[in-house]
């Protein structure tokens, strides 16, 4: 009675299970790699096979590149950091308030369900020159005409864009951490209380360290999304500076197809920034796995 077929089957099993997802991931990597290659001038269907730096040179020669890059980073960083603090706070409050199912759903799922572009539209309705906020201020005499109100649309500080991001991402980050926080709070939270710790000490010394990995990964996802987002900066962004994806798409739509290379060089710059986030993410998972190998799930 040979064990070989069973052993062989169990060895092959994970590879078969992973195959569909691996194929999807391959298409993704292929798409991104293709794009990066185009940034280096490699477009096989146009018979361009030699890598060149000329498109990157053109990109970095742009006078507005630095401001676009910094603008993108600024919007992404500010909104993700606010989302980080707000999301952890919201998660904590949901656990502390012993929020029931309905409250949790309303607080978290409604923003998750709403398209970013719709939120941008709502911000426009509320905070444009003739928006609701301006009308309220008109009522109390602070604003005379629509042009007196500092409109969120096209503001260089991007406060409208940041507002859209945090409305969506605070609940998303809370969603990623609330279950874990609840479970830790239940059992280890009780243990900490019997040790004499008050709520703040329990949160800072037990709950937060154990949620840190999940929080970090959610933060990175939110950061990368904001960095690469098109819809919201397109709708609410100023004429200048434009964010990198908006710039890239403008160039992408140029009738001259070779201009694609220029657009992809811009995308390559965004990808480079995101790769840094990816490295941190990968390190976080590796750390979690190492701890998990010993038995503790962090």
């Amino acid at each position, binding site marked *: 009675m040979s064990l070989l077929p069973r052993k062989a089957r169990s060895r092959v099993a994970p590879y078969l299970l992973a195959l569909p997802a691996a194929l999807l991931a391959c298409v993704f990597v292929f798409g991104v790699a293709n794009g990066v290659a185009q940034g280096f001038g490699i477009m096989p269907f146009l018979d361009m096979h030699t890598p060149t730096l000329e498109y990157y040179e053109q990109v970095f020669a742009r006078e507005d590149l630095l401001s676009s890059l910094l603008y993108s980073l600024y919007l992404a960083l500010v909104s993700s950091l606010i989302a980080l603090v707000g999301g952890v706070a919201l998660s904590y409050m949901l656990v502390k308030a012993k929020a029931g199912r309905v409250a949790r759903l309303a607080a978290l799922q409604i923003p998750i369900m709403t398209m970013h572009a719709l939120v941008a539209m709502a911000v426009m309705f509320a905070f444009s020159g003739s928006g609701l906020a301006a009308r309220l201020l008109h009522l109390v005499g602070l604003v005379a005409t629509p042009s007196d109100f500092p409109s969120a649309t096209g503001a260089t500080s991007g406060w409208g864009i940041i507002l859209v991001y945090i409305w969506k991402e605070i609940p998303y980050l809370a969603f990623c951490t609330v279950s874990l926080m609840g479970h830790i709070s239940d059992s280890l939270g009780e243990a900490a209380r019997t040790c004499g710790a008050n709520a703040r000490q329990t949160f800072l010394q037990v709950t937060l360290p154990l949620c840190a990995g999940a929080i970090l990964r959610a933060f990175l996802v939110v950061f990368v999304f904001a960095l690469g987002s098109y819809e919201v900066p397109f709708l609410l962004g100023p004429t200048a500076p434009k964010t990198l*994806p908006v710039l890239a798409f403008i160039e992408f739509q140029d009738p001259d197809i070779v201009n694609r290379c220029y657009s992809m060089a811009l995308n390559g710059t965004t990808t480079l920034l995101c790769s840094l986030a990816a490295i941190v993410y990968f390190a976080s998972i590796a750390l979690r796995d190492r701890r998990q190998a010993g038995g503790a799930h962090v």
Partner: protein
Amino acid sequence: MCSKKRQGQACGKGTFWARIYLVVHLVLVLIPIAIVATWSVSAAWPWPSLVPASLTTRGFETVLADSSTGLGSLWLSIGIAIACAAFTTCVATLGARAICLHTWRGRRIFEFATMLPFLIPGTVFAMGVQVAFIRLGLARSVGGVILAHSIVALPYAMSIMCDVTRAAGRRMEETSLTCGAGRLSTLVHATLPGLAPGIASSLLMCYILSFSQYFLTLLIGGGTVRTFALVLFPYLGGGDRTIAGAYGIVFIAVTLTVFLVFELLIHKLRAVEEIAYYES
């Protein structure tokens, strides 16, 4: 809320202020939706009045008209979103099993590769892959759009399925096999019920993602596949706020309905397994 002072510890100051915080948060969540809803039914809302001057249903009539830009695009979007959700969740369930219940060479790389769409923006992917999709005949097709949506939805589904798979482990399956059940029976009666809440959660998340996609659908669908999000977007830039509002409200209403259906499903299924999130 608590009335007795004795309940001080269980329902104390901390819980009270936390609830106030949540109420404020909920108000902030509902205000933008209320604003969009008001615009969706306003015929004229001139400056500087705080309420619409007159109401109309023309916004909803346009959105729900039996045309390719109305109901047609809505049904198409729902169909694509359901297909994407089903496909991605299946793929993620299998992949999560490979990561969580087996040790094999390349597992860490695989896990990381499936998380990549979290870490490289969809806009970069869309612009980079468009040419390849055109040459493969996937562009301008519903199939191509579903595929593209599934790729960006994959990491969301994978992280949900990994959590439930890890928590459920092999316990139920092993028990079922030792009772003499066959592989299929084990799958249906032991494995899937344990994963059910995660599967429902993943289906919901993928549905929302697909239904909300604009840029990706624009680039891959090439204007031929006119989803609801695609039809809605141009109105958001300005112009007719009534129609824009109506599109927005219909979007939210449809997503909310799907969400409530899933929520009832998840709630019924969650009673099945008590999930252990950590061990110490």
